[in-house]
């Protein structure tokens, strides 16, 4: 089944309690964070803690990624060296601005994979686009390496780069979000949305998630476990949607068996894109194998 990335939960790399328990809240993925949640003085300790966590904790079905420090810092190479040998699924890298950034990272990862006799190319990359330049280059970044599996627009850093600030409806992020989602689908990688910062505003989170889902996002980064059920709820197809999709897929199957091209469901003609969409709904609901 296609791996879901509805919720990617950040776990502060200096918080053993969260590192140990984060996966218990059943996000689709966990992100062990060495960047923003760790102060400069704690970088070394957090790296050790994250490494030990990777060695000792069974994360179950969660996709495991590590957010390393930016390529403009002295930390990122050491970050990679400590975490890649322990079987992680991917690296999340902040402030990517150009395809060259991705290539640099790709090579560094390959080097470590080779050194540890790991299959080359298995570790994926999620790029955070937190500047106007990064957003502008989104498609080229997403296609710069086969490792790139998802791209995400930034939040606060991006606002700062855009010389603006947070508004009630995040008006300032509408265009960047749309550009990223377009680039991601063009490059066939997952568009994942940024975090929703107000952890007590359940309704606001639901509204924002509904909106990003509607414009094509596949999931969101999460900063608090209580946000997970709300986002899952939004991204999980309703029973009505599932029933309709099953009807369409069944009709298409029968038509194919009979050698018919066009299908009609409830008096409406159903063409290929509609069937594709229905199949996607069933995949999301865990009712259909396969995927892109």
């Amino acid at each position, binding site marked *: 089944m296609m791996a879901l990335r509805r919720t990617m939960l950040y776990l502060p790399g200096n918080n053993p309690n969260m590192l140990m*328990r984060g996966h*218990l*809240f*059943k996000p689709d993925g966990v992100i062990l964070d060495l960047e923003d949640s760790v102060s400069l003085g704690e970088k070394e300790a957090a790296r050790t803690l994250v490494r030990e966590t990777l060695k000792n904790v069974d994360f179950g079905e969660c996709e495991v990624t590590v957010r390393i420090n930016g390529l403009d810092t002295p930390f990122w190479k050491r970050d990679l060296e400590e975490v890649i040998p322990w079987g992680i699924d991917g690296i999340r890298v902040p402030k990517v601005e150009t395809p060259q950034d991705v290539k640099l990272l790709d090579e560094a990862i390959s080097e470590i994979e080779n050194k540890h006799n790991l299959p080359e190319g298995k570790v994926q990359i999620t790029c955070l686009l937190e500047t106007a330049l990064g957003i502008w280059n989104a498609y080229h970044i997403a296609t710069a390496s086969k490792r790139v599996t998802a791209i995400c627009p930034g939040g606060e850093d991006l606002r700062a780069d855009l010389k603006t600030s947070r508004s009630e409806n995040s008006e300032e992020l509408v265009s960047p979000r749309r550009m990223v989602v377009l680039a991601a689908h063009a490059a066939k990688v997952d568009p994942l949305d940024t975090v929703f910062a107000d952890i*007590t505003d359940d309704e606001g989170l639901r509204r924002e998630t509904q909106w990003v889902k509607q414009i094509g996002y596949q999931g969101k980064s999460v900063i608090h*476990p*209580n946000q997970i059920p709300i986002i899952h709820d939004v991204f999980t197809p309703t029973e009505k949607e599932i029933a309709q999709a099953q009807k369409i897929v069944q009709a298409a199957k029968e038509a194919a068996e009979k050698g018919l091209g066009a299908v009609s469901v409830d008096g409406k003609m159903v063409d290929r894109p509609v069937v594709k969409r229905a199949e996607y709904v069933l995949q999301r609901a865990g009712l259909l194998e396969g995927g892109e």
Partner: protein
Amino acid sequence: MAVNAVGRDIPSSIPGYKDDVVLFRGATKRLPKGNRYGKKNRTTFFTKTDKTLPNIKAAIRESGLQSGMTISFHHHLRNGDYVVNMVLDACAEMGIKDLVIFPTALFGVHKHLTKHIQKGVIRQIQGSVNGPIGQLASEGGMELPVVLRSHGGRPRAVISGDVKIDVAFIAAPTADKYGNLTGAYGQSACGSLGYAHTDADYAECVVAITDNLVEYPAPYIQIPQTQVDYVVQVDKIGDPAGIVSGTTRVTRDPMRLLIARYAAKLIESSPYFKEGISFQTGAGGISLAAAAYVRDAMRKKGIKGSFGLGGITSFFVDMLEEGLFRQLMDVQSFDLAAVESISRNAAHVEISADWYANPWNAGCMVNMLDTVVLGATEVDRDFNVNVNTESDGALLHGIGGHQDTASGAKLTIITTPLLRGRIPSVVDSVYTVTTPGEVVDAVVTEFGVAINPRRQDLMDAIKPSKDLPLVTIDELVEKAKKLAGDMAPIEHTDRIIGVIEYRDGSVIDVVRQIKKK
């Protein structure tokens, strides 16, 4: 020394407790013999229509209280209580010594008693100790061992004659001059007076202490004039801020919510989740959140419960008013909404501790309970639970209704994080046994739910799912060890500073003096 049914070495004689200690043999093994205890007859003629006395000292004199006697208190004023401290201050000033105090519970505010312990005014505490007094006792600061009983075990001890109360001092938020008492009204209102009833019935002398003396007869009488010998009015019996909390809110702590969700799912998947379900939860974070999830499931499936039991919060009051319970059985009202509801809603019933949980009567409430969600400081491979001692061996908590509800409920769920900080809560063997594993059905942690192998029927009825990950208790112990490493054993001396009675009066465990840090 002899080993009891939970494998604890218990001396046959414990100085200051009993010369012939009864060992715990199993949850339903000890049966009562003989008749109930009764206090002396008395009469009051029409010539006496006013029982008020000018102050506490006058009441102490009239009651006949002398050194070496036993005095009792209830804990409905919780951490706002002034009465225990006022009475002991008066005793000290009057030169009374060597008292046994027999409270239903003590709180942090009773730290004040430390000086009375040190000066010999108080010789023994039979009741829960916590905070500074618990620490003092744990380090050997009391001459005689603390005796802990459950909320049901205490009235059992009184009614059977194990403990004779000489004078009961009953804090009364409202009283009249002839001794009718209520907790429902007054500046220090606390709602139910459930824990005071047995004391009012059985103490040789009953003194009511109030800060709201009203015209006769008082409204909504909970303890009647027939039981009360004297009434004293004081300025304040307590601090309302410490007596009841505001509205009780459900936690947002994700780990507590996760544990609560598993506990609720377990209830929902059990055979007991059906029309007429009854349940009890504490007011603690996990318990209350579990109740919220169960409530949501009841709404969704259109299930109506029969009764909610125990310490009552606004949360249960709302469920009553919504029709999700037919009745609330209230031994203790935790917050303002519960206090306001008790006198206004006939379906919100005050019950005594005897009615609530005493194993030695014709049937207490806990026997009718379907499910209870309880906490623990530790639980072990045998499902034995410790709620009394902390990880350093200090005796800091009472038993509450833990043993009683666990023993009565058809589904007893213990909720606890697997680790607190880096200290495991699921261990090989608990330091102190409060509640025996034979009455515990499941342990719920954030790392999964372990069902007691004694409950094969429950295991057969429950399907594991993503929302209800089943594990064994041994897996939980091993997981905790892996995450936390080995713990150093608690260092203690041989001296017994606490006796933990099971609700039937047998000894389930003892607590020994810890080595001072």
